[in-house]
């Protein structure tokens, strides 16, 4: 690659270089993340697993620029991150829906804010509403658009929040335990939905999860983090062919990978 060529698929989309983050200052200072170094290529789907409180959510906020690192550097598109980056879709760990908006309006929010949708939002309103309805139906919430978030069950709120992260078709998708409050079947259904979307659009995705099967099913690379302060202790490339199906999850190869990851995390609990 000649230096004159623009950094494209060869430079990773997201680069973390020895990033650390400490909350608070003075005696209450607490290191949540230490020396995290990782690269995410454009179109890569990564998963982050690790014990509760190890800094996974913190890591996501660092990548999207919601938090400034205490040390090290975060780069996206080769540029150091100075503030919240554009073009991400983020499903936070809590649903964080706005109680004054109906579910539909909550999901329309990114379209009101993010270019280029914002510009044509008024003109294309009907079309956007239809898109939202489709999305709602795909996560099993057809017909609930008119309800307010506080009229939904916990799992339904979480799915709405997922829809909000997807609706503007972002380049980068950050999912913090997006299926945690769902039953096994709904969850596995949504894995399929998720994978299909990814295969179609090839966005870059970061998934935080406690479900190792979920991580292996969806991700190209799984990062295992240590207890707090979180460090990356294992990187596991998942070379399983796509599209993966529920059958894949019963193959020996799949089960082995899950088992390996499990063993590694178990060490953190010793």
């Amino acid at each position, binding site marked *: 690659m000649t230096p004159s060529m623009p950094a494209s698929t060869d430079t990773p989309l997201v680069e973390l270089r020895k990033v650390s983050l400490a909350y608070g200052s003075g005696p209450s200072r607490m290191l949540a993340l230490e020396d995290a170094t990782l690269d995410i290529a454009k179109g890569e789907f990564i998963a982050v697993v690790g014990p509760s409180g190890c800094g996974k959510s913190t890591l996501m*906020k660092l990548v*999207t620029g*919601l938090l400034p690192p205490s040390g090290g550097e975060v780069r996206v598109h080769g540029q150091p991150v100075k*503030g*919240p*980056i*554009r*073009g*991400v879709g*983020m499903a*936070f760990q*809590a649903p*964080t829906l*706005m*109680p*004054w*908006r109906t579910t539909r309006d909550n999901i329309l*929010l*990114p379209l*009101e*804010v*993010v270019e280029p949708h914002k510009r044509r939002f008024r003109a294309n309103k009907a079309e956007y509403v239809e898109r939202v309805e489709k999305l709602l139906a795909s996560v099993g919430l057809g017909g609930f658009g008119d309800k*307010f978030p*506080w009229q939904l069950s916990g799992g339904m709120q979480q799915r709405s929040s997922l829809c909000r992260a997807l609706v*503007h078709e972002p380049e980068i998708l*950050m999912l913090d335990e997006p299926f945690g409050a769902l039953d096994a079947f709904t969850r596995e259904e949504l894995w399929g939905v998720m994978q299909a979307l990814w295969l179609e659009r090839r966005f870059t995705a970061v998934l935080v999860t406690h479900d190792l099967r979920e991580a292996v099913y969806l991700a190209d690379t799984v990062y295992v983090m240590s207890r707090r302060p979180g460090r990356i202790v294992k990187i596991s490339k998942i070379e399983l062919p796509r599209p993966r199906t529920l059958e894949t999850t019963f193959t020996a190869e799949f089960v082995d990978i899950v088992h390996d990851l499990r063993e590694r995390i178990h060490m953190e609990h010793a």
Partner: protein
Amino acid sequence: MTDRQRQILLVAMPWLAMAGLLLLWELACIVFDVPEILAPKPSRIFEVMIQRWDILLRYCLETLWTTAIGFVLAIGFGVLLGLAVGASPFVYSGLYPLLIAFNAVPKVAIVPILMIWLGVGALPAIITAFVISFFPIVVNVATGLATIEPEMRDVMRSLGASQWEILTKVGVPRAMPYLFASLKVAVTLAFIGSVISETVGGNRGIGFLMLSAGARNDSATTFAGLFAIAIMGVLMYAACALVERRMTRWAFRGEIVS
């Protein structure tokens, strides 16, 4: 108590409370033989109100519309300033002390100066109503903004929303319950502003009526004027409460369900 009885009682309460209060007042006047010049009996006040309803109504309407205009201006300006104060720590630290200083100053002392610049009439009344009532709105809107849950802010920031978008899409709805709380205070202040201005100068409005009645030792009419103001205040409040019900249902959801 059934739901229906409850409902009826809720509607009846304000009337019961008011009737109770007036009755107490009437009785106190009779028992302590309070001279009319001090505090007329409510029955006497209502008598005057009925007798002179046409004059009262005319003066009331004059006061009402200056108050309403001042109040609307106060909402507009108060919300904007509140947004600015709530959104920027610099505006907050620079402007808040000035606002407090300005608002601690009795407006009665300022109005004459205003009148010297603007002459007497409706304009100073509108301005006084505006000036006296915008502050609670600023404070409450600013507090509403400052207490936005950081999680909501993060949702917007992650979408790359501008400061302005965060303000309008999260800040404004979040601040709504605060705004409506402040309107209840502001509307009463707006009336006080109008009336003060009318007492300082001019020959219009319920303030003038009360003052000139006072000069004639006609305290029944003065109190009739006070009652009229009170009634207008409650009407304006009811209007605000109506809008509040429609716009901030989400914040009061705890009340609706249980």
